[in-house]
């Protein structure tokens, strides 16, 4: 079956591609270094202090990329995260304006995010025949709808008391807290994916769900955990986004899902499932952030920046495939 073979790990071109992806992270590090040198040369203001100051808003998306990588490796997709961010941020601002203690506000934010993820997970694991793209498209509309209803006719809510959020947006020296949190969580997510049974199960499910099921892997439980984790991380992203925006509106979190997916795919994580490593996703997140900050500083047309990012993405997907095909051809020629 053509559909299945895309996910199997047994045929020849697959191996060639996998071999290529192993060195993908190495290549990304080189790209990152070149990118920093490039940005440094085009913008005199591209130095550590400015880069770290501009980073928090972009890092909120990196939070989402981490569990999104798991979802992609499962061979699935979640396009509801932007709406989850919007709903969490909205509820957070409303809770904060009700003068709840700040710790309760943080809890509301994380709980709303987690609940959204849990809903996605429950629907997808109870009705396994439903495609994740459609389910999360539906929940995207629902979450954003609830947010818009809560926001009312004004369409936006702003914090009356920003003290707690100013604390979150704080820095150690010139390094914002969010940077440390992203690094710590990235290490945790990467280690779990690469070194634990849970992580191996994710790859197994992504490679061949049926085989994984017959091998005794609790497929549905793992999917539920991952979607819930994605919701939780979206809540976390909403928390930090709120600390940047001091409020929420109907456009909050727009496009976060696609940015997170782009970061992961550029990092060599296949949307077909079963392949890729989180290290790639993390490095590529920083490559993209550097590019945006650097090109932003020379006042390049933002639409052009999007075009460049899109072109890079296509290149990132194409390269391993072309390289893989070349190797297959070479091998075929040799065996003749």
């Amino acid at each position: 079956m053509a559909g299945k073979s895309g996910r199997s790990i047994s045929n020849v071109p697959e191996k060639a591609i996998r071999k290529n992806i192993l060195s993908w992270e190495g290549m990304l590090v080189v790209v990152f270094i070149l990118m920093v040198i490039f940005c440094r040369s085009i913008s005199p203001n591209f130095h550590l202090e400015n880069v770290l100051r501009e980073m928090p808003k972009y890092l909120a998306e990196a939070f989402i990329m981490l569990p999104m990588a798991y979802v992609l490796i499962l061979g699935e997709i979640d396009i509801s995260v932007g709406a989850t961010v919007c709903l969490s941020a909205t509820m957070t601002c409303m809770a904060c304006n009700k003068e709840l203690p700040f710790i309760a506000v943080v809890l509301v934010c994380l709980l709303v995010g987690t609940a959204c993820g849990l809903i996605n997970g429950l629907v997808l694991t109870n009705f396994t025949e439903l495609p994740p793209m459609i389910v999360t498209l539906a929940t995207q509309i629902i979450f954003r709808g609830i947010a818009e209803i809560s926001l009312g006719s004004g369409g936006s809510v702003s914090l009356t008391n920003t003290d707690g959020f100013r604390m979150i947006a704080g820095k150690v020296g010139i390094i914002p807290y969010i940077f440390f949190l992203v690094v710590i969580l990235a290490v945790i997510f990467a280690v779990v994916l690469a070194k634990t049974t849970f992580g191996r199960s994710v790859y197994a499910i992504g490679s061949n769900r049926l085989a994984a099921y017959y091998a005794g892997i609790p497929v549905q439980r793992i999917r539920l955990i991952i979607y819930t984790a994605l919701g939780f991380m979206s809540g976390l992203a909403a928390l930090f986004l709120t600390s940047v925006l001091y409020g929420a509106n109907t456009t909050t979190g727009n496009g976060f899902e696609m940015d997170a997916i782009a970061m992961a795919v550029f990092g060599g994580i296949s949307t077909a499932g079963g392949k890729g490593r989180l290290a790639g996703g993390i490095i590529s997140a920083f490559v993209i952030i550097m590019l945006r900050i650097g090109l932003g500083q020379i006042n390049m047309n933002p639409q052009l920046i999007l075009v460049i990012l899109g072109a890079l993405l296509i290149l990132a997907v194409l390269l391993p495939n072309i390289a893989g095909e070349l190797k297959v051809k070479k091998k075929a020629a040799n065996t003749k």
Partner: protein
Amino acid sequence: MKKKVLSALLCTAMVATLAAGCGSSGGDSKDGEAAKSDDSGKKTYAIVTKAAGNPYNEKEAEGFQEVIEAEGGECIVKHPEAATADAQVSVIQSLISQGVDSIAIAANDENALQAALEEAMDAGIKVSCLDSKVNADSRMTFVNQAGTKEIGQALMDAVLDITGGEGQWAILSATSQAANQNAWIEAMKEVMTDEKYSKLELVEVAYGDDEPQKSTDQTLALLQKYPDLKLICAPTTVGINAAAKVLQDEGSDVKLTGLGLPSEMAEYIGDDDAHSCPYMYLWNPIDVGRLGAYTSIALVNGDITGAEGETFTAGDMGEYTITDAGDGGTEIILGPPFKFEPSNIDEWKDVY
């Protein structure tokens, strides 16, 4: 094992580049003070629009740029990636990095830019807004294209006049959180409480998000939902243009008024049934931009601080006084809105 050593090496290289590569000029910047992008003493003035492709904003930027360059300054025109506050935050952050001297912004959200703009002001950048304001804490002053009350009054009188004093009408706005749109709609509702307007029924405020397609869809939906609708008032250039096309194409009896660009609306303005819009209002966006530029220059030169009662000369535009905006901040009002009607549209349509 080899692989582990290699990856450790690569990681170290990455961190080292980040620290060395970006850090090499880190010493230039003093605490909190943004590094100046040039040492020649030429001041840099930035204007941030709501989104690329917004013709009204582009005219403002044009006027802004013209004045800044004529006065010997350097002008940066920045469009955000999307028409959202999120995207404008990135733009402001980037301008802080570049060490500009002033930022004039047409805001996509009244409150969401506060953290970023406060940071800009802490870095010594003079922040003002034009067209669509930010809250009082986020700005030094606001260049208001026309008093909110004057616009509400002008639009309501147009509604009263065109409908003949009674019947159903609807508003087609931009996004639901656009501060200027909401202020004008509020002002219209305020005016409507007067006895004179009691036979008018506002059936819906629709939001076209300043996207042509969505505005078109919203207009069609209004026509379908309210068969007795007599008039649509669109206080947004994108919305009025989309609605005008729909009404004229459909041959609808529903009339249109609002705020629109003369160049885009010329073919729809006329007194007869073949035209959908008898008359509309706007001010000159080029003048808004020019006044914005003179305001930025006055702020940077220290002539004004944005406090109520201060006066300054805006080149050939004359003397302006900073007044209380009623939201805890101050504003500079350009003047009353200008009426575009069949008799004058031809001379204006080529201007902007």
